[in-house]
């Protein structure tokens, strides 16, 4: 058992060091001999055991004695631990590739590949704009009974549907949006956009988006892209937005009238209530063919959802 553990460990270390490569070779020879029911003739196990034993002996007689006495048992324990940790490591790697998080979809436990948890950070509702990693129950998130008919959409009729719930001024929505747009473009997926103003001073942008889409659905997406990339300190400035509307070919006066109309206020409230019904607890929240992704995931994660690459 010791040779198997040594083979794996030294093989990994051997990537970086020639000394460990030689030891990995000896361990491989030992494993090969054991597998072919021959005795290991290199004394590899004894050499390694004694090297460890010597290090222990220089520190603690008791530890050295126990190590020597229970070497076989310890080898087995380490073997089981190694197999278990290897399984979890592989699973973690798989999860990270598929979901952007080692612990699984939308889980924010520590992940060595994403130590700062960037892929799970969201702008929490009622958080006054502060951003943090959070662990909420994503099982409550649903599209069931949600009326999405009034929201901006593109590529309608596609078999793939992406619903992006985000906030123009929120960092993590801004981070996730380009990937989603790219995916919708590439896969010709139906993209439905819902602005959820987590930060209150951008409330009015929901109405702007509603009216801009109503005025010209084609030009809306260019404006939307701009709002997710423009300096976020300026998008709360109405003059800046009016100027942007003009730049992107909208009739700013008409849109301002639309924004102030009672009908828009009612529609905006209705859309807001619809979004809340999803069980949303932060932005960005993205549904891809019903699968929910909370936080800004790497592009491959979104693409995997469309390409049906998720096995479990």
């Amino acid at each position, binding site marked *: 058992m010791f040779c198997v553990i040594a083979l794996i460990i030294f093989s990994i270390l051997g990537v970086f060091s020639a000394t460990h490569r030689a030891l990995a070779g000896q361990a491989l020879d030992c494993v090969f001999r054991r597998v072919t029911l021959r005795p290991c003739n290199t004394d590899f196990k*004894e050499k390694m055991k004694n*090297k460890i*034993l*010597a*290090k222990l*002996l*220089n520190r603690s*007689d008791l530890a050295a004695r126990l190590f*020597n006495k229970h070497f076989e048992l310890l080898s087995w324990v380490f073997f089981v631990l190694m197999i278990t940790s290897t399984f979890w490591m592989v699973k973690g790697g798989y999860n990270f590739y598929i979901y952007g998080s080692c612990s699984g979809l939308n889980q924010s436990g520590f992940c060595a590949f994403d130590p700062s948890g960037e892929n799970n950070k969201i702008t929490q509702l009622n958080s006054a704009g502060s951003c943090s990693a959070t662990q909420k129950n994503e099982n409550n998130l649903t599209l069931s009974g949600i009326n999405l008919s009034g929201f901006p959409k593109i590529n309608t009729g596609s078999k793939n549907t992406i619903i992006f719930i985000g906030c123009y001024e929120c960092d993590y929505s801004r981070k996730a949006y380009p990937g989603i747009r790219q995916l919708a473009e590439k896969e010709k997926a139906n993209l439905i956009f819902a602005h959820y103003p987590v930060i209150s001073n951008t409330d009015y942008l929901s109405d702007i988006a509603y009216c801009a889409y109503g005025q010209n659905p084609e030009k809306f997406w260019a404006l939307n892209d701009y709002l997710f990339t423009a300096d976020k300190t300026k998008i709360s400035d109405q003059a800046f937005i009016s100027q942007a509307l003009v730049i992107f070919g909208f009739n700013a006066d008409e849109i301002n009238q639309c924004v102030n109309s009672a009908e828009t206020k009612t529609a905006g409230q209705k859309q807001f209530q619809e979004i809340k019904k999803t069980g949303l607890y932060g932005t960005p929240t993205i549904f891809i063919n019903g699968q929910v992704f909370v936080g800004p995931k790497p592009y491959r994660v979104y693409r995997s959802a469309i390409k049906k690459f998720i096995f479990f």
Partner: protein
Amino acid sequence: MNLEKIRQDFPLFQKLINGKPPVYFDNACMSLKPLPVIKAINEYYYDYPSCGGRSGHKLGETVTKKVEAARKKIAEFIGAKHVEEIIFTRNTTEGINLVAHTLNLKLEDIILGTDKEHNSNLIPWQILSKKIGVVHKVVPSKPDNTFDLEKFESMMNGQVKLVAMVHTSNLDGVSIPAKEIIKIAHKHGALVLLDAAQSAPHKKIDVTELDVDFLAFSGHKMLGPTGTGVLYGKKHLLENLESFLTGGETVEYSTYSGHKLLPIPEKFEAGLQDYAGIIGLGEAAEYLKKIGYDNIAEQEYKLNKYLTDEILKIPKIKIIGPLDSRLRSGIVSFYVEGIDSHQIAILLDETANIMIRSGQHCVHSWFNAKNIKTSARASLYFYNTMAEAEIFVTSLNKIIKIL
């Protein structure tokens, strides 16, 4: 003997390994080399790196002179009457093989050896036994592993052509009573070959006084370079031996159909020799002479006694050979039932930089006969100190406790 000053001649003692000074107790396998020996070797390569005995130019002549000077030093070192009785070899093994293959032994000739022969003085006879039917017989030791002279005498007869024995055993450091053995052997008309690999570095040998016929030893165990050795043989015996390795520098001339061999020692020194090594070996002999064999024996005894006394306090440890350390030269060979000697050796090395040897020390036959797996062997030399012996004892105690 100023030990501190002597140790300055050995570069290894000026070094730390992993932050600790090395404790070198593997002298039965290989001794360390003092600066004069290293310097002599370097001088050859730096100042006159050319052929000896052939080229007549200045450098060639220098090599020839230095090699012959080394031969003279070795002859004096072992008390040989004639310089040409010194044949340079690669090691003891080669010297023994030279005798084995040139002595013209015949079917049913008996060769007597001890039961503690190094493979170098066992395998050649076993090969000859298969090839020409000589009989190799073993003189069993007494229970305390010392030589049984009476048993030996009882085994001597006219059929015994050669007594080929280890002078000092590398297994336990015990020496045989060479003078008495030689006397008895000669009385029965047998020749005597001594394997002096382990004795030449530690005790004064006078081949003339011993009246030994052949004596082989190595340079690497007596402060000399590796790959050097000496075969001493009485002049008239060497002259009558057939040639062993032949070729360059062994003949006076050759034609397409014949040749005339050179006299000894050239007759046995075929091909280009290890000139640097031979010159270094001469320097090693000089160095040992300066140290003095009495000093060497005294220091080894002092350390061996301390190690023996301390080791015997550790339960379960068994020392191979007599418990009297004066009978074991600089060797303390021991084993513990149920504990792998290799493990002890590795742990001594890993924990305290103590270098000893473990295994069967090329005396497999003895271990197999006694059904003992292996032993750990601490072998001392004059440059070892009491402080090193104390480190050894402390570390060994610690290791035995956890195993």
